Every structure is written in C-alpha cells, then in structure tokens.
C-alpha cells in the first residue's frame, strides 16, 4: 500500500471541476484508492466516487490523505499528488 498526505490549496477546495478531475484521474488506475480529510478527521471514502469526495468537504487549506492498493498504486498516488499540488493547473 502507498499512502501520502497532500495539502489542497485550490481556492474552492475539492469541489466542482477540481473534484471531477480528481475522481476522473483516480478512475484511470486499477488500484483501489481511498481518501480522507485529515483536517476534519473524516472517515476514508472511495477516491473513485464523486459523491464520496464531495462529502469530504475539502476546503482550501485542508490536508487530505490518499492511500492506494493495487498493481499501479505508486502511479495513482503520484498522479493525484501532482494534480492537487499543481493546483489543478492553477485556477478553475
């Protein structure tokens, strides 16, 4: 299993387009991916679920924990980290 904390700096948090991009990216991999909101201390949800990710209520400045298990677990965690840390490209 691979696990990493990531800080979300995007101004709307994990919502709208950023949330959709996050879920779409997770869905491109085989590994099972879970994500929790460390800032609010939420339970983990399926990172491939838009509804799950929305219910985390991740706002700008929150920290999330992404964990993956499966053949491409390292790649999916890397991809999600660069997506979030790249601020989803900057705006949106």
């Amino acid at each position, binding site marked *: 299993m691979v696990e990493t904390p990531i800080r979300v700096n995007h*101004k709307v948090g994990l919502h709208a387009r950023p949330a959709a991009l996050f*879920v779409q990216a997770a869905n491109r991999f085989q590994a099972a991916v879970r994500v929790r909101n460390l800032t609010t201390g939420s339970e983990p949800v399926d990172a491939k679920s838009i509804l*799950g990710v929305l*219910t985390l209520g991740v*706002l700008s400045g929150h920290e999330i924990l992404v964990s993956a298990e499966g053949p491409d677990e390292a790649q999916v965690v890397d991809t999600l980290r660069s997506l979030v840390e*790249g*601020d989803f*490209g900057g705006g949106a």
Partner: protein
Amino acid sequence: MGDLPLRGLPASEGIAIGPAHRFQVPEKTIPHREPGPFDDEWRRFDQARQAAGRELSELRQRLSQRAGEGEAAIFDAQRMMLDDPLLSDHVRRRLREGVSVEQAVAGAAGQIADQLASMTDELFAARAADIADVGDRLVRILLGRPAADLGELREPSVIVAEELTPSDTAGLDPAMTLGFCTAAGGLTSHSAILARTLGLPAVVGMGEGTLERIADGDELILDGGQGVVWVAPSASLLTEYRGRQADRRKQAAAWRSAAEGEARTSDGRRFEVAANVGDLASARQAAANGAEGIGLLRTEFLYLEARRPPPEDEQRKAYGEIFAAMNGKPVIVRTLDVGGDKPPTYLTFPHELNPFLGWRAIRVSLDRPDLFITQVRAILRAALGHDVRIMLPMVSGFDEVRRARELVARAETDLGKEGLPFARDLPLGIMVETPAAAVLVDVLAREADFFSLGTNDLTQYTLAVDRGNARVAPLFQPLHPAVLRLVRTAIDSAHGAGKWIGMCGELAGMRNAIPILLGLGLDEFSMAAGSIPEAKALIGRMDLEQARRLAEETLALATADEIEARMERFLGEIGWRSGA
C-alpha cells in the same frame, strides 16, 4: 384581486403576460412493495440507471443547443453521480436489508443529499440538489411514472413552481414558455442563470406560501426586470404592460432586422461586428445573430474536456465544421490559451503562486512546440477554402511572435513535404492583453499582421486586479481611464503601421463603451452573439465626429465612475433605452 403585486427577486429581464401554469411537483410517494430476490432488484437498478443515462444525454443535448456547453455541463455531473460507487454501495446495502429497489434508491439518494446539504460551505450544499434530482429520476423510472415534462404545455403560459430543478428548466419548451416564477431560488441559482441565457423573463425567491395565491389558469403579468408578479391584473394595468411589452418587442425586432445588414455610422463609415465563439453551437448562434465573422474563436473546448491532447485530425474536423458554419465569413482562431484558470488534465502544471502571471497561453505553446505545431497544422489544413486568421494569446514581447511565426513556417514546410493540402500564408496576429503588448504595438507590427484587444485581461493586468477575487472586484473597471488610454495607444500605433485592430473583450459589446471605441477608430467589435443586434443599432445611431468628441472628452476624465456617469448621460441624450 387588487392591484398589489407579489414580489420576488428580479432573475431575468423581460415582461411575460399570460395564463399561469402551476407546475406540480411530480408525485414522490413510493408505494410499498415486497421485494423480489436481490439479483432481480439489482438488475432493475441497473436498467433504471441505463434509462436515466439516456434521459440525461438527451436533456444535455437539448440544453447545449439552446444554451451552450457551459449550461449543459450540469448534466455531466449528474451522469457521473448516476454511476457513482457510493450510490451503488448505499443501494446494495439497503437491498440486503430487504427493501424494494425503489425504496433503496430513494433512501440512498436522500441520505447522500442530506449529508451534502448539511455542509456549511454552500458550494458543496448546492450539489445536494443534483444527487436528489438523480434519485428522483431513478425512482420515477423504476415506478414507470411519466416524466413531468414542461415541454408538453398546450398554450403559451407563465410557469409557476415551488422550484425548478435543472432537468425541469432544460425541459422547458421555448415556444410555450412565456416566463417563470418560483418560490425558492436565488439570483445565482441554476434556473435564474439559465433564464438569462435563454432570454426568458423570470422572478425567483418569492418566498414560501406566495404561490398558493396563484391558481392554474390565472392571468398573470410577470415583470422580470422589477421582480414582480401581478395576479389577475386590472384592465388598465394590462393595457399599460401590453404597451411596454410591445415597445420592447418592436425595439428588439428593429435591432434584429438591422443586424442582418452591415454596421455603419449615420455618416456612412463601416465597422465590423463579429462574435466571440467557443464551439460549433455558439458559431451557429453567431451566424444567426448577424455576426460578420468570428473575432475570437476560443479553441480550449477541444483541450479541456479531453484526457489527452486532441489529435490533429480531430481538431481539423472540429475547426472545419466551425469555418463551414460561418459560410465564408472571416474567422480568427486563437491558439491554445491554457494555464491560469484553464488547466487540461494531461499537462502537468507547476504549483504557481500567481498563475495569471505564470506559465500560460503563448508561453505554454512555445515551451511545448509539439502541442502548438499539431494545432497549427490542424488549422492550416481546415482553413483551405475559408477566410481564416491565426491569433496568439497573451503576447508580451517581440521574440514570442517571431518564434511562433517560425513554428508556423515549420508546420507549413512539413505539410508541404507530406503532400497534404493546406492553406498557405494565413495572416498571423496577436491579442493585445498585456500592457507590454499595448505600448509595443508599433514594434510588434513588424511581425504581426493584425491585432485584437483582449480587454478582460488587459484590465486585470493594467490595474493589477485579479478578476476572480471578490474582495477587489469593485476595482476591476474596464472603463478605467488607464485602460482606455492603453486602448487608444494600441489603436493609434496599429493604424500608424497600417495594421487592422479589433477588440474581442467584453468592453467591445458594452453599450457604454461602444461610442467611445468608435471615436478611437477601432476597426472591429467582437462580442457575445446576443449583444450583436443592439451593438449594430447603436453604431448606426452615432456619427463619427460626435464619437470622436466623446472619446476625447471621456479619456480626459479622472476616474471610471466619471466616465460611466458621462456615458449614462450620453446614452440618455441620444435616447438609447437599454434591454429588449
């Protein structure tokens, strides 16, 4: 009933007069049913999801034709929810507990909606409406109930509803809907935004209980600009409103019919009025509204929704369709403008403190010549037989134009070697949207064939005001004298070099800016298609000498407020009435 109106929020301008159609919220009670075996119930859930997916695709298509891609995207979110693993997990768990599939779906969607609705951030709470909408749709399909279709009205009516979901509004039949009012909703709710896009008079947020005072078939006057609804109005009020409605219609019709012709000032000088376009649907809308060309074709639509850079052939086909829709009229294609607020998934953007001052637009293109050359090749190939020009976004220096030109030349050489047919020597121009470009137009003119002022970014960069930051939003003033003076400098320098200069920022379509821009000598005005008829009419009302005096006078003023006040007075003096 006396002449006292019901009051709400003015969601969308316009007057609607006609019978009320009370939109009944569809029956939502779920009859009790003993569930069958799990597999049978689950199969029905799967089938319902497929049927719902088809309905959503159909709604999406209807809406994108009428209101554009942005509005239609709401149904993409609902489609994602339909196949969401969280929803299916909840449904599965409830089925195991031994309830029927319709009860399982209603319970699951309701639980997730409640969870989202309870979140303090209103953006998240707003998504609750989407999952609730998805749940209602599935339950309705499972119970075999017909869709409550607002498209089935038999006479033109004013829709009266507790609230309208995105699916309800998308299903409105434009020929039968005069306008609508709702008890719930705010000025930024989805139905309010959609009403403005469709030009449908609307009042929202009338409050609980007010709608009980309206019966099906009651004669109504709905004044969307004032946010009031009159029930069973007196004869004199009806006469007054019919008169106002007729005036507005006459004006709109006059503008529209004039829009088919060229835009000329009263003393005969011709100005081009073009449209800003973002996809094929908006290109068609532009042609229908009298656009004399496309002053800005944004190409991001090909890049942003894709999961990989769009291949050359796919781009060539998409551009070709848009060029053909314009039927020989000129089209200015802006090369990829990503970065800042518009990141595609397949480009890794560094974390930037200031994305608007960072890696975007021409800077990305020059660093990724593979992407740029693919796009240029597609444009050159699609342009064969059409009047097409290429425009570079966010230029801040001379070298950028020269390097881009070299890449275009390389694309031409390659295409020639490969023996593929393409259009040669397309004009290559630049957007003037940085202060640097504006003051350097005379120099840039050595490499650029034409110019177009992008005033949204030009305003942001000139005034150092982030246009997405609500705190400083009042400082974002396109009519700021500093912005207008840069515009003047750019126009004068372009003309000094014998080059054509247009404008494709919002300023070009604003009635309080057009007279000034005429006076400054702008060659082309490119704007949202809906603004074209009024802009052409306004140009026809002006004469050049009057416009020049006005430009000189306003550019000498000290603040944007003074300029706006002067323009309001001017529009009053020439008897210009806003909105139709």
